[in-house]
């Protein structure tokens, strides 16, 4: 027999039977499910969240101040430390902004390798998300599968640029290195293999009853509300809006690549999960096309040795794994940026967490932190 609704005559609920106290609870900053140092001040009634107030800034390193003190190319390694599970896309957005300011054209081979690095990074970022947010909800098995494949992707990065996480793998006007011999062949083998692995993750989760119980209907948000809150990336697409900067305002050579922007109408945690998994499949598709198109050529455009952009301002953004990642650069004609501001998707997406969490249980909050996919390095900068 289903349990009568709380507050109905058959089930008056705790409120009418006992004295209930609202309680304030500190969630984090040291909590494994916050994926870093995020503190949430919760106002709870039993297990129910009445109000959640995020408190961020524990990882603030003054990156924007550092950009101002160093030359343009010296800023690139700092971007690695923002979204530290997706360094390539950070490098890309940073370089793209300065290239826009300079008006430099990127050689075709460099564009294709950049797209390859971006999509590998998207895959690895989504794999980290899949593994960790699964663990948060008690699904430990997918973690081992996801991190196995991520390890292979990190090996590709290591072979390309020597680093696994803080890649520093792009330069203003192109790339630092060409691909090593055999890299593309090994990548093709990996890509042939990957769709079957993604099937494995889906087999573990997509129709899993427990997974669905924990995610379906949790944190529902409409597309209009997403836009109002500035939510972008898989969160917006999970609410049914087909908007992806790779399609809407294509950069590099995304306009000639054939891929689908996956969307789901529901706007809940489950739909965001499906969107991300579909995105991984599309990334494989994009990577295969890039591998086929890749020909010999230059990897660096015509960029002056000392980069002194005109005294202007520019904003450029890309579709990072977590949403719109943009940089706003103000130049005063010297070799250092006068002001370099980052528009981090995690920071903006996190501000909608109180809206998503309201009325849910504390255990759902864990699912919600996972589903908006934040990286605290990027939130706090």
């Amino acid at each position, binding site marked *: 027999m289903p349990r009568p609704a709380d507050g109905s005559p058959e089930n008056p609920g705790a409120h009418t039977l006992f004295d209930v106290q609202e309680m304030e609870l500190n969630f984090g900053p040291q909590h494994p499910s916050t994926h870093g140092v995020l503190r949430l001040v919760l106002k709870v009634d039993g297990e129910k969240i009445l109000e959640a107030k995020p408190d961020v*800034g524990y990882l603030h390193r003054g990156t924007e*101040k550092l950009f101002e*003190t160093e030359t343009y190319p010296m800023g690139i390694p700092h971007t690695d430390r923002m979204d530290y599970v997706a360094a390539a896309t950070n490098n890309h957005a940073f370089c793209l902004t300065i290239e826009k300011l*300079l*008006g430099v054209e990127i050689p075709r081979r460099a564009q294709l390798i950049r797209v390859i690095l971006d999509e590998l990074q998207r895959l690895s970022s989504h794999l980290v998300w899949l593994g960790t947010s699964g663990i948060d909800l008690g699904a430990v098995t997918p973690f081992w599968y996801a991190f196995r494949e991520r390890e292979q992707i990190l090996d590709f990065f290591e072979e390309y640029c020597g680093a696994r996480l803080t890649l520093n793998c792009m330069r203003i006007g192109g790339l630092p290195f060409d691909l090593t011999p055999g890299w593309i062949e090994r990548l093709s083998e990996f890509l042939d293999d990957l769709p079957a692995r993604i099937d494995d993750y889906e087999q573990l989760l997509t129709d899993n009853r427990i997974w669905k119980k924990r995610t379906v209907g949790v944190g529902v948000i409409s597309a209009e509300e997403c*836009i109002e809150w500035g939510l972008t990336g898989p969160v917006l697409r999970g609410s049914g809006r087909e908007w992806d900067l790779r399609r809407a305002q294509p950069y590099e050579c995304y306009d000639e690549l054939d891929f689908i922007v996956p969307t789901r109408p529901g706007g809940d945690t489950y739909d965001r999960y499906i969107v991300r998994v579909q995105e991984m499949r599309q990334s494989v598709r994009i990577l295969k096309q890039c591998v086929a198109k890749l020909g010999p050529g230059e990897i660096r455009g015509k960029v002056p040795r000392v980069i002194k952009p005109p005294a202007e301002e520019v904003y450029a953004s890309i579709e990072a794994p977590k949403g719109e990642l*943009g940089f706003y650069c*103000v130049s005063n004609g010297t070799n250092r940026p006068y002001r370099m501001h980052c528009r981090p998707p995690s920071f903006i997406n996190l501000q909608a967490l109180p809206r998503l969490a309201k009325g849910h249980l504390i255990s759902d909050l864990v699912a919600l932190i996972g589903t908006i996919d934040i990286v605290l390095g990027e939130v706090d900068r």
Partner: protein
Amino acid sequence: MTEEKPKEAPKKLEAHDASSHPWVESLRAALPDTVLSAKEFAGQVTVTVAREAMARVARHLKDAEDFKYCVDVTAVDWKDRQPRFDVVYHFYSFSKNGRLRVKCGAADGEDVPSIASVYLAANWPERETWDMFGIRFSGHPDLRRILTWEGFHGHPLRKDFPLEGVDTGAAIYPEEWPEGGGPSLDDPNRKAVS
């Protein structure tokens, strides 16, 4: 090998006046005397508006011009200029697939009307701008520091804030830094970023 292409110098981008741009025209028609200047650089339109009108400008852009998505709010410190700060807003319109940058000047200590009631997305970016630059947003629902902590002195992204930080009284290594977390005011190594 690939054929040699004749080497061309990259064409220099130049800013030009954008007063006749339809979005600027619409803004000027709806709110006379608010648009101070408009320019276009690298295909991006920047409108400078009067500070007092900022909330009305945002409302007009959202309702009449369909700029439904407030991408970002930030500021630039020009230190010796009057007014000292530029508060910079980025808006995006899904129907136009276009971006618009709106700027307004603010002197040190002057309030800027908050647009957090127009765009919920502007809430945290405005808090960040307050925290980093010390620009107050009047009418903001919850204007607290966000990246630094309550009780922090100064605003780190101002150009006269020293790169090494300031003495906050929170010494981590008391032997090395007896006075706190950074060099003291008369330390010759203390320098501000210009």
